[in-house]
Every structure is written in C-alpha cells, then in structure tokens.
C-alpha cells in the first residue's frame, strides 16, 4: 500500500518535471519559463522526495531537510533570477 | 559493488552526460557563457561521482569545484575583461548626447571581443596624460574641436617649448582623438574603427612624438598613414 503510494508520488513528480521542463525549449520570456520551472523543480522534486520518504521512512531526518531546502532554495532562486533578469526601469 | 548488474544500465547513460557538458564548455567563446556552462558541468560531475560511490569527491566537486571556482572566476573575469578609457570631466561624456554615437560604437566593437568599456574621468589633460603613462587607463579619448585646439602636455621636453603645443584638426576629420597604449587594442581599433568616428594613435608612436615637437603637417600625415596601413 505504502509502496504504491510512494510510486504515485514519484510518478506525479516525474510528470511535473517533464511538463515544467519542456517549455524551456520554447521561445517564451525568461519569467514565463520561470513559472513552469517552479512547477517542475520545486513542486515536482518535492513530490519525488516525499515518494522516497514513504519508501525509506528510517532516513526521514535527511529527507525532511532535503524537502525544506528544496522549497526554500528553489523559491528564493526563482525570486533572484526574476529580479536579476529584469532591468530596473522605473 | 554488489549491484552492478542493476546499476550498469543507467550508469552508462549518466556517464555520457559528462563529456557532453565538457564539450559544450570547450566550444564557448564568451567567458560569461562559459561560466554558466562550467556550473552545469560541475553539477553533472557531482552527480556522476556520487553515483559511482565517491561521496567525498562529489561533495568537493560541488562545494569547491562549482561554487568556489565559479565565484573566483566570476570575480577574475569581471575585473580583468575591461577597457578603461580616460576622458576629461569637463566634457561631460556621460550626459552629453554628442558623445553617444562614438560610445555606442565602441561598446559594440569591444563587445565582440567580450570586453567592457569603463569611462574614467580626469580633471585636466595633465592628469589624463599622467594616468596613461602610469598605466591607470588603457587609453584616452579627447575632443579636438576645429576652433579650439587641444593642448598636449609636454612634460618631457619643457625647455624646447615655452608654450604648449597644439593639435589642429581638419574639419573633415573626426573630432575625437583616441590614444592607446596597449598594442592589441591599437590593432583592433585601427582595423575596425572607421577614421570618421575617431582618430586612433598609439602611445609612444612616432606620430605622437612628432606632434610634440610641433611639426604639425607631418604628424597628421603620419597618423593617417598609420591608420591606413595597419
């Protein structure tokens, strides 16, 4: 049961990865790609790590730390990239 | 490792990524693009080391190889790939619209060689020339208006001239005079900067010495031949 649930989480994460990374190849603006990358790299990776957490519960402190740092770093990185790639023009 | 039969399948595919990233890095010409690709290479290398079981090597690659190396290289590239051009503060280069075409052209020109242009302002011609001699700047740019000629300092031959020598400029010629001390920059400027934009001279050239002695006509002729045959 837990095993199936973990596979579901990992597959959802993989779907997020592919859906969010695919627009990188297009010719949209940096910020638009950043939106889809936040789906892929933050939420998708978090889903994958949760799936791993369900598989190996005894490594939970490590994986929870990974989960937290994924959420914080990727979000802050999204903000920094958005801030740096747009020039100040006010 | 005991699970080599399982791992072999994906291991080979992951291994291919490293030479791929390295090839991408090697064919980059712009230093900043290369830095970004270096980061990608570092991430892929850390993945491979970790997958092969070298946890310590992977950690070192991520922390030192990627983070520290990129930081140091970024600082080095940013502080070295720059051309410092000395100008006079009285001419208000930054705010004057008159300067814009020349500066834009220079930026585009230097951009092709991945150089940045940095303007350094000096109060008078004396300090400007001093800065060029002491290698504070790579070149100077002066305006020589047809009516009022620019004064060149002649500190090395004070006895010969009581009054400072002047450079008269033909109205057909460009009003800008760029003096460079770096041979490679001089080469680039003389081949790619059209003479209507600015005249280019190298520091310590015969032309400049002639200018100093006050022989005006030969000096200009020298300068124009210099710009043409290089």
């Amino acid at each position, binding site marked *: 049961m837990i095993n199936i649930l973990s596979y579901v989480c990992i597959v959802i994460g993989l779907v997020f990865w592919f859906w969010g990374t695919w627009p990188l190849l297009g010719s949209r603006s940096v910020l638009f790609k950043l939106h889809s990358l936040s789906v892929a790299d933050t*939420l998708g990776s978090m889903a994958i790590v949760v799936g791993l957490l369900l598989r190996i519960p005894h490594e939970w402190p490590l994986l929870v730390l990974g989960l937290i740092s994924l959420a914080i770093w990727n979000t*802050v990185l999204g903000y920094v990239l958005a801030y740096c790639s747009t020039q100040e023009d006010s | 490792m005991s699970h080599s039969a399982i791992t072999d399948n994906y291991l080979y595919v992951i291994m291919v990524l490293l030479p791929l990233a390295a090839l991408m890095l090697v064919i980059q010409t712009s230093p900043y693009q290369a830095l970004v690709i270096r980061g990608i290479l570092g991430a892929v290398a850390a993945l491979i080391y970790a997958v092969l079981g070298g946890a310590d090597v992977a950690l070192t690659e991520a922390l030192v190889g990627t983070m520290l190396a990129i930081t140091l290289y970024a600082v080095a590239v940013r502080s070295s790939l720059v051309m410092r051009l000395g100008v006079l503060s009285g001419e208000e280069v930054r705010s004057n619209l008159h300067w814009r075409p020349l500066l834009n052209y220079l930026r585009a020109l230097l951009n092709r060689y991945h150089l940045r242009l940095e303007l350094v302002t000096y109060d008078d011609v004396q300090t400007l020339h001093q800065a060029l001699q002491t290698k504070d700047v790579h070149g100077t740019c002066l305006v020589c208006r047809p009516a009022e000629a620019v004064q060149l300092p002649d500190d090395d031959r004070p006895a010969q001239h009581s009054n400072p020598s002047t450079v008269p400029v033909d109205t057909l010629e460009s009003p800008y005079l760029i003096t460079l001390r770096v041979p490679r920059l001089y080469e680039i400027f003389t081949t790619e900067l059209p003479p209507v934009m600015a005249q280019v001279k190298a520091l310590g050239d015969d032309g400049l010495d002639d200018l100093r002695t006050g022989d005006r006509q030969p000096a200009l002729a020298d300068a124009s031949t210099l710009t043409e045959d290089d």
Partner: protein
Amino acid sequence: MAGYLNLLLRLAIWFLLTADLSWANILIGVTVAILLPRGVSNPGTLKDWLRTLGEVVVAIPQAYAEAFEIMLRPHRYEVVTVDRAKPRRSPSLIFLDIFLITFTPKTIVQRYREQGWYEVHRIQRRPTQ
C-alpha cells in the same frame, strides 16, 4: 520572541542533519545554536509570525492545486501587477511574504520596492482588458 524562533530553526536544522538524539549531541547543538552570532533585528510580534507560518503550511497544498490548474488549463498570458505589502513588517517577515508569493507557481515577485510594494509577475488565462 522571534529570537526563540531563530534558535528553534537552528536546532531543527542541526537535529535533522545529525539525526542523533544522544545527550552529547543535544549539548553540542544547543551550544552551537546559542553561540552563533545573531543579527540585530527588530522582531515582529509573535502573532504575525504564527499567522505567516500558518500561511506557509496552507501554501503547500495551494501550490499543488495551482500547478494542476495551469497544467490542465494553459495560462498563456503574462502580466505584471503591483501589490501592496502589509504595513509594519520586519525584514524577515517580508522575506516570508516574498517566499509565499513566489512559492505558488502562478506568481513570482519580481522586485520589492522600498515603500512597501511588490512587483508581482503572474500568468493568466486571458489577456488583460
């Protein structure tokens, strides 16, 4: 009050990283957490902190909901709006606000202006009128 939160954060990271609850480890963790330098900051009220932390917990399912929404119904149009920040926020609370807005996939904070405004970049299904 927010100083305790700071200490708590450090201890949480320490114990998650070491995964060891022996007395020696607890002692080391507490000592290091107290000895590490702390920036001088004016902490917001505890109520603000608790509410923002609650919002962080709520934001996770909301982010997944938004992700599914933009996957199923494509949002093609981009727009930049300017939002008002809540008044009298300490810098760390502003950071949490920016984190919350950027964490959800539809919105990204582009820039924070000093007067308490966020420039938010968001994607929409229809072009703005």
